[in-house]
């Protein structure tokens, strides 16, 4: 690993930064060496791994890429661990004009009539793919999909809602959960989108003795509580 | 009074201190190389600011340190043949010649055709200055100054690099301007014959 005598090198999706930072701190306070966490998009990290990075652990927000790594690296798929899940909500600013409105209007279609909606880009961002599945299932994709503001990450979509540049965001529950400036509306029935799973895998190149232990730790029940604290669901 | 000039100016190690008044239309300025002749012309053209002094040509005050008059160079109506020619490299010879022609309130009304045949530069009109010979460059520079419709002329060794025949024709023109139009001129030269032919009024710098 680049940093030599330190802890294992973890390549992790940016969207997991908040819980993972806390978990790494906890892990270190248990007397372990501090893991080195490199946050970037799941894509960039996967390509780096493919091209011979010395990472010990890969934690992805995008199942496609973990499958890709597992296939390309001939990794035993049994080694994949699911750390957490997530759900999708419709959110708006608490002090915006739409915060009250949608308490009284029942259907998603009615709420989203004529307003600006943002989410991840369905072509490239997992969040967008889930949003598209939901809107298709709701039968309003043809209308919304055309005018949806497609961002390059879940955090960019969140930012647009926070700035009120978009009236509504189709966002991860974990991004909305702990914010008191947003209200989320449980507009979507469960099961409208494929399950959201954050998965981790020990990379075959890993020689770090503590990498496996750290993986066990972040997949533990104790860790699940931390994920839950940040709005993630149990795996 | 053609010229009423008193200039003090320090530039690096050199300092000039000149004062003269003249009724003669053509005043020759002579002096050793490096004595400050070009510096004096630059002051009169408004490109350098004298430390103190007064510059008036034909009764028009161009500069006066006491009265705080300092006309900008583009309002001094002077035709200046620079020692280093300074043709515009991106313009053709013809465009160079025409550059100053717009000026309305000058005294020399020379046509482009006149100037071109006088200076024998007809074949150069469409060329860019970069490919001209030394003497050709000089002739175009003279033409540009003459055509700029000036009220007075500053000529800094105008005939350098010119063959005798051509130099002769240009001197004749200068004599004509001196006599017929009484255009005030300051004429810097090292050639004593040239100077003797043109004027009795000689200012020697030292």
């Amino acid at each position, binding site marked *: 690993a680049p940093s030599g005598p330190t802890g294992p090198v973890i390549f992790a999706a940016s969207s997991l930064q908040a819980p993972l930072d806390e978990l790494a701190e906890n892990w270190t306070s248990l007397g372990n060496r501090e893991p080195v966490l490199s946050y970037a998009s799941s894509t960039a990290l996967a390509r780096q791994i493919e091209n011979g990075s010395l990472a010990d652990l890969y934690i992805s927000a995008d199942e496609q890429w973990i499958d890709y790594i597992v296939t390309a690296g001939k990794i035993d798929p049994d080694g994949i661990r699911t750390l957490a899940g997530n759900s999708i909500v419709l959110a708006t600013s608490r002090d915006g004009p739409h915060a009250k409105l949608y308490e009284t209007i029942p259907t998603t279609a009615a709420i989203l009539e004529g307003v600006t909606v943002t989410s991840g880009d369905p072509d490239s961002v997992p969040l967008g793919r889930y949003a598209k599945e939901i809107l298709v299932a709701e039968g309003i994709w043809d209308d919304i999909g055309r005018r949806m*503001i497609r961002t390059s990450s879940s955090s960019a979509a969140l930012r647009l809602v926070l700035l009120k540049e978009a009236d509504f965001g189709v966002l991860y529950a974990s991004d909305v959960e702990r914010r008191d400036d947003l209200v989320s509306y449980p507009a979507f029935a469960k099961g409208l989108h494929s399950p959201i799973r954050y998965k981790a895998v020990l990379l075959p190149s890993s020689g770090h003795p503590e990498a496996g232990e750290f993986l066990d730790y972040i997949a533990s029940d104790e860790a699940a509580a931390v994920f839950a604290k940040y709005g993630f669901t149990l795996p | 009074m053609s010229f009423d000039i008193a200039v003090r100016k320090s530039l690096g190690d050199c300092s000039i201190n000149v004062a003269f008044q003249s009724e003669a239309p053509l005043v020759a300025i002579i002096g050793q190389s490096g004595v400050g002749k070009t510096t004096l012309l630059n002051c009169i053209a408004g490109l350098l600011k004298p430390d103190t002094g007064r510059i008036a040509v034909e009764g028009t005050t161009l500069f006066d340190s006491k009265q705080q008059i300092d006309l900008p160079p583009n309002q001094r109506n002077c035709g200046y043949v620079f020692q280093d020619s300074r043709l515009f490299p*991106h313009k053709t010879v013809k465009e160079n010649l025409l550059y100053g022609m717009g000026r309305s309130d000058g005294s020399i009304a020379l046509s482009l055709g006149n100037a071109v045949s006088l200076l024998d530069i007809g074949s150069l009109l469409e060329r*860019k200055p970069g490919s001209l010979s030394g003497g050709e460059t000089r002739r175009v520079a003279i033409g540009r100054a003459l055509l700029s419709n000036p009220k007075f002329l500053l000529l800094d060794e105008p005939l350098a690099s010119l063959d005798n025949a051509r130099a002769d024709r240009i001197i004749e023109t200068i004599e004509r301007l001196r006599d017929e139009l009484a255009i005030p001129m300051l004429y810097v030269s090292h050639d004593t014959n040239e100077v003797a032919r043109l004027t009795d009024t000689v200012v020697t710098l030292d």
Partner: protein
Amino acid sequence: MIAPLSSAEWEIITLSLKVTSVAVLLALPIAYGLALVLTRSRFPGRFLLDALVHLPLVLPPVVTGYVLLILFGRNGPIGSFLESTFGTSLTFRWTGAALAAAVMALPLMVRAMRLSIEAVDPRLVEAAHTLGASRWRTFATIILPLSLPGILAGAILGFARSIGEFGATITFVSNIPGETRTLPLAIYTSLQVPGTDIAVARLVVLAVIISLAALILSEWLVRRASGGRAHVL
């Protein structure tokens, strides 16, 4: 790889060219004005202006995009003014992409232009003045044409930077197909999904071809402008 361009690819290319040309045309006069002002005088605040012009180069593009979003968003000071005055908005529109590209290209253009303006021989400016040319005429007939190499170099840099602009654009105007999904955003989008290597490669090749074409054009322009002047060594 050698299949003809799909209509989606055409759309991306025409959009990119539209955004880039508007960006360069917008930035060119502003950049030249800034270059002039930054070259000619030492007014108070000049230094701040200089720094401000450089900022989009120094800051990560995401930050520049974010600042644009705050300023030009519908709640931002400029954005709300534009909305109420002209009824238009730049956010999430191709015009916003052009603005982002122009802002990112500006510092490069200014630098190149400054270099050429500073190289203009002051003796020629003096000569123009003695020939009666006003400040303005001197500018238009001497300084502007003599700094043409810098303007061209600035335009080339600006074009290249604009056509490649990604971070500020995606942050400011998002990634909307047909509206703001320019070539770099399309490449990025394809890169995010495994198994799209061919689509990515096609788009990259297109970007390379466009930039080659632009280079050829610019070289031709430069040679025309310099009248085929010989080179230095």
